């Protein structure tokens, strides 16, 4: 008899953002002004658990829903109770507030232990189900870290399940295709990436849920070890509005006009598809600066200003040596600053000036990902970024390469910019098993303690990174679009990694720093960083690591792996993508190819094709063509979305596109609110007209 624990989260509804949700001054989205709902993927995970229970023919198994949040989060538990959950437990306590993923996973895992002891009578025959990620954080870290805390298996990105030979076989997405796998032992964490049949509320269940007493636990009940702000390993430094959120959202009524717009937008495009990566000046360590007062790399604009004001003041007073500033001078500065400084803040700033030593030491590492005997392009992009960071930090680029028979790949890493390759090989590492890989990588990191570790935000990287970070006790920031070295001198931190990422479905940007950690870890989306041109004259070292692994370390039985055919190219300046609205594979091929051809001829450029997740799921095209958060992030000059509704995961993946054009039959399609031009209509009718108009157009 298996039991089920479903992790559910209350999130702001980022699909219904009203104008008054934005702070008029800063333009930042204010979370508290949004309507709260249950995280959509969690509803799917919950339905998935019910389906598993039903499939196994086991009526005695319990479904326990667990949520952590403020008291109002009980709504999400009522959602579950109205749909046949047996028990709802809310973990709520002021002390739990302000937690990052680590300080969320930790108390959740302790609550799971309590559930197992008190409700499951100690039985380890249970599954933990969770949505792959939440729509507000998008990190996909918590479930993997819960698994890590509990030291149990984790199977991520699951899309389907069958019950065969008395065990569950899960279908899931992997970096370059799909896989059928089952877990070797229970308990296990399963994260659901897509399950299309969320449950309906029942009348009796809803009435019962409205009257039900939820179980509430506080910190004293669970005795977690990392909670709240104190237990967190990352902190948000700054939240600001995203630069490119101002889409035009213009309604175009006929295809001919749309054709003109495409041609015009292409001609007017800025030419550089600068992809959200930093355009700030290159960081220099304090030791390499003109003087110690020169502080132009602070994490916030305000701090930069503080130092500028101070520097100007000191210059005008003719002071060059900070140690010679006495109380009288301080008094003078405070008086002259018109209230800009008070005593404490000035002393902090001055103390910061005295700092010269970087807070972190060690190399800048990249966790390599590989498949089919080749290094994943995302890894090479990260090496490009790591090279830049390492150069400003005057350190080396290391790559941690884990696998079996992969030594031959080292050279590619070196010519792409790596200095040291940390090679971990073992025959049990020949396929990606998260439990083995995270052990190999964590051991290696703990041996050398690089100051930065970068992972690709692919299905594999997003699974591995949170486990490694949790295991090594380090903070992790997911899906960064920008990574910069900065100082936070006043807080005594020099040369730290400022990790910037979108949050709340891309409606705000957040800059994050690592704390209480030996190493700073981040994942970055494929396509966001730029790889270096290979330099075949580069030399590097290969440092072989040993590892002890036995069969018992394996967590998964891989039953079948389906690699997608070939790999898709998204480097063209124009991408035409098809979604569920294409109806079938034939019309996808016909319509997308037709438009691609017309555009190729007219614009005299290459045009790539892509697809939404739904189109891939429905078999219109192969997995590598998937654009979006679980596929590839793209940043073309023009992105044309045909029959794509605009799910948030897709929109995040095209956030860097310069101009987005959408065609959809549904006038309420979310994509219309996040694109530049849209036409309401059926793709079957619009595309031929559009193609004709393009051929005719000037």
């Amino acid at each position: 008899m298996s039991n089920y624990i479903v992790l559910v989260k209350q999130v702001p509804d980022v699909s219904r953002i009203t104008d008054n949700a934005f702070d008029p001054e800063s333009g930042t989205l204010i979370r508290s002004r949004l309507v709260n709902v249950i995280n959509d993927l969690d509803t799917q995970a919950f339905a998935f658990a019910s389906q598993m229970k039903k499939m196994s023919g086991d009526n005695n198994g319990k479904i326990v829903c667990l949520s952590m949040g403020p008291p109002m989060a009980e709504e999400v538990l009522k959602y579950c109770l109205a749909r046949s959950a047996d028990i709802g437990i809310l973990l709520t306590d002021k002390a739990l507030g302000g937690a990052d993923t680590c300080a969320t996973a930790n108390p959740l895992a302790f609550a799971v232990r309590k559930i197992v002891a008190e409700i499951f009578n100690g039985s380890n025959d249970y599954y933990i189900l969770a949505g792959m990620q939440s729509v507000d954080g998008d990190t996909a870290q918590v479930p993997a870290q819960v698994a890590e805390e509990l030291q149990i298996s984790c199977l991520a990105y699951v899309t389907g399940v069958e019950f065969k030979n008395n065990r569950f076989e899960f279908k899931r997405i992997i970096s370059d295709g799909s896989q059928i796998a089952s877990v070797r032992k229970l308990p296990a964490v399963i994260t659901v990436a897509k399950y299309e049949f969320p449950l309906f509320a029942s009348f009796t269940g809803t009435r019962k849920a409205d009257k039900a007493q939820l179980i509430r636990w506080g910190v004293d009940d669970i005795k977690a070890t990392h909670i709240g702000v104190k237990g967190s390993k990352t902190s948000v430094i700054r939240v600001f509005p995203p630069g490119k959120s101002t889409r035009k959202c213009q309604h175009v009524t006929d295809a001919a006009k749309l054709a003109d717009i495409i041609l015009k937008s292409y001609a007017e495009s800025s030419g550089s598809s600068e992809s959200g990566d930093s355009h700030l000046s290159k960081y220099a360590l304090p030791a390499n600066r003109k003087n110690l007062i020169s502080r132009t790399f602070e994490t916030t604009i305000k701090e930069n200003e503080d130092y500028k004001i101070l520097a100007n003041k000191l210059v005008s007073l003719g002071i060059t040596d900070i140690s010679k500033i006495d109380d009288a001078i301080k008094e003078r500065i405070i008086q002259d600053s018109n209230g800009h400084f008070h005593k404490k803040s000035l002393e902090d700033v001055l103390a910061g000036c005295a700092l010269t030593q970087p807070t972190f030491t060690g190399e800048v590492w990249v966790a390599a990902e590989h498949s089919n005997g080749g290094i994943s392009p995302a890894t090479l992009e990260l090496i490009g970024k790591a090279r830049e960071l390492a150069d400003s930090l005057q350190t080396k680029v290391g790559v941690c390469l884990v696998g079996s028979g992969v030594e031959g790949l080292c050279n590619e890493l070196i010519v792409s910019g790596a200095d040291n390759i940390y090679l971990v090989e073992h025959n049990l590492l020949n396929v990606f098993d998260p439990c083995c890989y995270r052990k190999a990588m964590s051991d290696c990191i703990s041996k050398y303690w690089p100051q930065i570790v970068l992972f690709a935000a692919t299905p594999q990287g997003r699974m591995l990174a949170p486990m490694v970070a949790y295991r090594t006790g380090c903070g992790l920031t997911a899906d960064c679009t920008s990574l910069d070295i900065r100082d936070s001198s006043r807080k005594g931190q020099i040369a730290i990694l400022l990790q910037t990422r979108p949050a709340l479905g891309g409606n705000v940007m957040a800059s994050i720093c690592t704390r209480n950690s030996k190493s700073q870890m981040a994942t970055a989306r494929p396509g966001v960083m730029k790889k270096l041109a290979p330099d075949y004259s580069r030399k590097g070292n290969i440092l072989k690591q040993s590892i002890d692994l036995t069969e018992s370390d394996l967590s998964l039985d891989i039953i079948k792996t389906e690699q997608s055919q070939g790999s898709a190219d998204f480097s063209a300046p124009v991408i035409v993508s098809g979604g569920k609205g294409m109806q079938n594979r034939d019309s996808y091929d016909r319509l997308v190819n037709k438009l691609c051809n017309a555009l190729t001829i007219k614009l005299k450029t290459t045009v790539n094709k892509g697809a939404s997740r739904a189109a891939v799921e429905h078999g219109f095209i192969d997995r590598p063509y998937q654009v979006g958060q679980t596929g590839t992030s793209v940043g073309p000059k023009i992105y044309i979305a045909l029959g794509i509704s605009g799910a948030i995961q897709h929109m995040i993946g095209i956030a860097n596109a310069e101009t987005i054009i959408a065609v959809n039959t549904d006038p309420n399609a979310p994509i219309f609110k996040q694109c530049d031009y849209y036409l309401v209509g059926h793709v079957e009718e619009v595309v031929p007209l559009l193609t004709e108009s393009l051929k005719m157009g000037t």
Partner: protein
Amino acid sequence: MEEKKYNQTNVLIVGAGPAGLACAIRLKHKNPHLDVCVIEKGLDLGNNNLSGAVLELESLKNLLDAACPGWEKTDDAKKILEQKIVADDFVFLTKKRSFGISPFIKLAKLLHLGTGQLIHQGDYSVSISMLTKWLGQIAKQMGVEVLCGFAASDILCDELQGNVNAVKLVDQGLDKDGNRQPNFVEGEKINADFFVLAEGNDGLISEKFIEKAGLKRRQQQLYSVGVKELYKVTPEQFKKFGSGRVVHSLGYPLWQPLIGPDMFGGGIIYAGNDDHISVGVIVGADWKYHNFNPQDALTLFKEHPFVKQLIEGGVVVEAGVKMIPEGGFCAIPKDPQTGSIGKNNCLILGDSAGFVNMLKIKGLHNAVNSGILAADAIVTNLDKPKLAARGYTELVNKSNIYKEMLSACTFRQTVAKFGPTFGIPLSVLGNLLPKFTVEKDYEAMTTASYDLKLPIDFDKNTFIALAGTHHREDQPSHLKIIDKEICRLKCTPKFKSPCITFCPAGVYETVSGEVKPANPSNCIHCKTCQRKCPFDNIRWTVPEGGGGPRYKRL
């Protein structure tokens, strides 16, 4: 704890509109121990509620003074009742001009003629969607179980007793072709001692019950279609229009005496909160023009110089369509034996019963009042459920609802019979006139055309987006064409498939030569198709709960 039978309740109210919620609030007030459940097909309170709306405060006072003392001092109440009507204009529009006719109405009032009831001064211009939401919150606070997102598909009667046993909810989790998905759940049956049908106009369950229980109407129901858009205008523009002002119009673009078109109806322009102005057109569903769409009339109305200057520069923020039951007194469904509105333990309220006073063009106050009376009848007959409908009807007959309905008894039928040009003047004679029998709305369809030219085509897509309508895509169409051969052989050749034109949500399309409800997920639940298909060949059934428009302040 004893496991409570959650599929059982004392009173089940179908429809969380003003009538149903008034009934629920009154029930809990009179007897807090009763289990009162209200089910609502909309996703949230007020989402499927649309009206003008002008409210006579008396009805709210009747309900809340006792049940919720001090209610009028709450912020919510103040917000909802912000627009007390201080200016009440009546105009007649010709194609280019407008004539104030308020003095005539005032004169009619002095002479105690029926049309004198059209005076709205002292009433309130409200958003029925907001009103409903607020009433629902009051009901919840009082312990009523208000369950949104639950759609009823059938009502089950006990053949022997004649009582209603249960209401069945809609099956959920079917795919487009009707196959069961993994999340399929069969509609639950909800048992209750009393059933209150307060679904609004042309209620699915109400009509099923009327048929099953053998209730009869002296004359069949007549309908109107109301199309409304809510404008947000600048504060200056709003000031120019005037806070607390309502305008009603007759004439263009529905009725141009002698030269046509010749349709019953009119326009409304109401002041709302926060610089909002409601603009709408109501048109009798007995229009004869095969190519007519009420939204076209709205477009022409808005383009009329008199209206245009009032909403200049405004932006439409919400839009919707509903039908109004206008048959009045003679169209109230009653039990032939006892005369009860409903039967035994099942009561019919508000618009479902047809309590719209056509002289006032208002039904909201009657809806609330009927809710109160239904509750009172249930409470006095707690141990005799069978007598509830009769008790309710006795209360109705002694109430203002009856008086009002009787006074407006022949108005709408007179107009339907003689057309507005002659019918409206004739109706002044009021109840001296004989009770005409009139044809059903859909039978009025002819091959005649509506000839007024539109400056721009109506944009249905934007309209439905503004109605916020939403349904799970992959479910069977809830709109059914009974016999597609009728469409092919009769309707399309003769009338060119009017449903394609008049459906305000563009649900119907010709797909490979066949007229189909091709976009059921666009449906905004107005039910015009069910009442206006010239061959009575369309049926509106209920989609999965939570579907339909999502009105917030209509």
